[in-house]
């Protein structure tokens, strides 16, 4: 119960809950869709943060877990007639297993080599999915519309997916906080600061890194299933989109890597910025340029992100923001 009273936990939880409740108040499908994107970004960025922010390993191709989970779940729902929930769980398990396998091998690489390897894995999976007949090859798979009937119609299914995602986002934040406050998390942060020194101090680095990797992969796997179930279509290009992967890095960076609130804030801020740019007549054509310039300014001048900056600026905030 002590953890629940800590503002470092309930502030981000409250933020996420606010995003989840907002469409309930307006009741409109378009707010639900935009809040879905926000919640998805928040949850994905927060899970990436477990590896990137706490452990200091830059996973450039993290979206591979989103794509793989999405494919496995989609296959189970579409071809095997599973319900969404067990399929989502299994999507998460598949992503976790891949991370476990990879963790035992590529986590030996450090710095730039690791970042390059994750890009390679994402591209290899994309190319593989294009060839794999069971997953529909280059055209991917399309959900039979009749499946939504089992959930009480398409509209009810969309709300169900939205609520599942909201719960998942809350769970991710909770896990992220728990990890940060645990001895395991302390080990991860020691690895981030100096891996060799951490090993000397008794952190079993390969094991700790692998579990951080698995933990940060499970949630994207589950979110992938929810997203593609809602989408109704899955294809290799949209499942393993490297660009989305890099957008996640930007979100984490924007909010503050290594903090609990940061990725949640960053994800929400990035998505609302993107929406504003895309809908404004002045910036619509050059939204990528504006986003690029902003990213550059943040990287150059506020590398610790919004939350990191606030924490270093006002000491009193250090007890409130985690």
């Amino acid at each position: 119960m002590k953890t629940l009273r800590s503002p470092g936990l309930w502030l981000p939880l409250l933020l996420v809950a606010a995003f989840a409740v907002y469409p309930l108040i307006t009741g409109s499908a378009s707010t639900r869709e935009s809040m879905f994107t926000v919640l998805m970004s928040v949850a994905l960025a927060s899970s990436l943060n477990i590896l990137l922010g706490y452990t200091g390993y830059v996973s450039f191709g993290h979206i591979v877990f989103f794509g793989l989970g999405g494919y496995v779940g989609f296959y189970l729902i579409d071809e095997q007639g599973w319900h969404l929930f067990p399929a989502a769980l299994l999507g998460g398990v598949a992503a976790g297993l891949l991370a476990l396998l990879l963790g035992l091998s590529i986590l030996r690489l450090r710095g730039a080599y690791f970042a390059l390897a994750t890009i390679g894995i994402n591209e290899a999976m994309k190319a593989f999915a294009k060839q794999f007949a069971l997953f529909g090859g280059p055209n991917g798979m399309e959900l039979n519309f009749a499946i939504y009937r089992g959930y009480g119609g398409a509209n009810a299914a969309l709300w169900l997916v939205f609520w599942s995602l909201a719960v998942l986002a809350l769970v991710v934040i909770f896990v992220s906080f728990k990890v940060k406050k645990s001895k395991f998390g302390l080990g991860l942060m020691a690895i981030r600061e100096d891996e060799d020194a951490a090993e000397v101090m008794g952190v079993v680095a390969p094991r700790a890194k692998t579990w951080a990797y698995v933990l940060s992969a499970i949630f994207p796997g589950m979110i992938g299933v929810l997203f593609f179930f809602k989408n109704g279509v899955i294809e290799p290009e949209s499942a393993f989109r490297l660009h989305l992967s890099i957008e996640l890095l930007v979100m984490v960076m924007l909010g503050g890597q290594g903090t609990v609130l940061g990725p949640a804030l960053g994800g929400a801020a990035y998505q609302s910025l993107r929406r504003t740019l895309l809908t404004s007549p002045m910036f619509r054509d050059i939204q990528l340029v504006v986003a690029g310039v902003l990213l550059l300014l943040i990287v150059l001048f506020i590398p610790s992100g919004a939350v990191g900056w606030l924490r270093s600026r006002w000491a009193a905030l250090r007890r409130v923001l985690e």
Partner: protein
Amino acid sequence: MSQLLQYLADGLLIGVVYGIAAMGLTLIFGVMSVINLAHGPIIALGMFGVYLCFTVLGLNPFIALILVAALGLLLGLIIYIVAVHRVLNAPHLSSLLATFSVNMIIIGIGTTIWSTSFRNVDYSLGTLQAAGISLPATRVAAALIALLVTGVLYWFLYRTRPGKNIRAVANNRTAAELMGIPSTRVLALSFGIGTMLAAIAGGLIGTILPFTILSGGVYELKSFVIVVLGGLGNPLGALVGGLILGLIEGVIPAFTSVGWVPVFEFVLFVLLLLLRPQGLFGAKK
């Protein structure tokens, strides 16, 4: 048999061109440990540079390359000063994201100006026939120019003062500074040369294949694979890596569907990173 020879020759010719794109990437990494994620868009800019010189100014594409190379060098210097210099000593993520933001800016401007429709440089020098295989002369010319560029780069790095400075800074920046080498200028120059090579490679590919402003991404990924094949930071390794990749691309379609090529490439890439991260030929460390 002659079919296989044809595949081999096609693969080798394009492989040399891939090689110089990768050489730019590996040079920048070797000197300042920065993975330049703006490499792809710069390759695409090289393509458009040649395309514009050819269609607007009516220049011969291979002459236009000189102009493209000069502009590439200049662009590299600007990118270094604006985006890279401040993050050189920051963690990896910072330099990756800084160069990626340059990538977004270039792609954003490029799509606004040129949209994402396909272009091609409609230029042909006829076909060469030899030993039962036929080769488009533009491909042969592109490969020869790529080899020439490699030769010049080697002469520059090993025989001239600025080139030796670059190698010294790559070897040990602090020691080089103590010896009175102006490291900031050398770093900027190496970044400029790296982007220049990307622009030249783009220009050469542009004379061979159709392209869009987004095409650079594909070649950027290929460059990663090649760089790892040859050893990060090893320019000659990059050329050999390019040849190997070209061979893989040329030969695999002879046995199975083209779609398996990238699977094979990236699995090879990850395996190499794991088993021989110093590259097939061992980068200088």
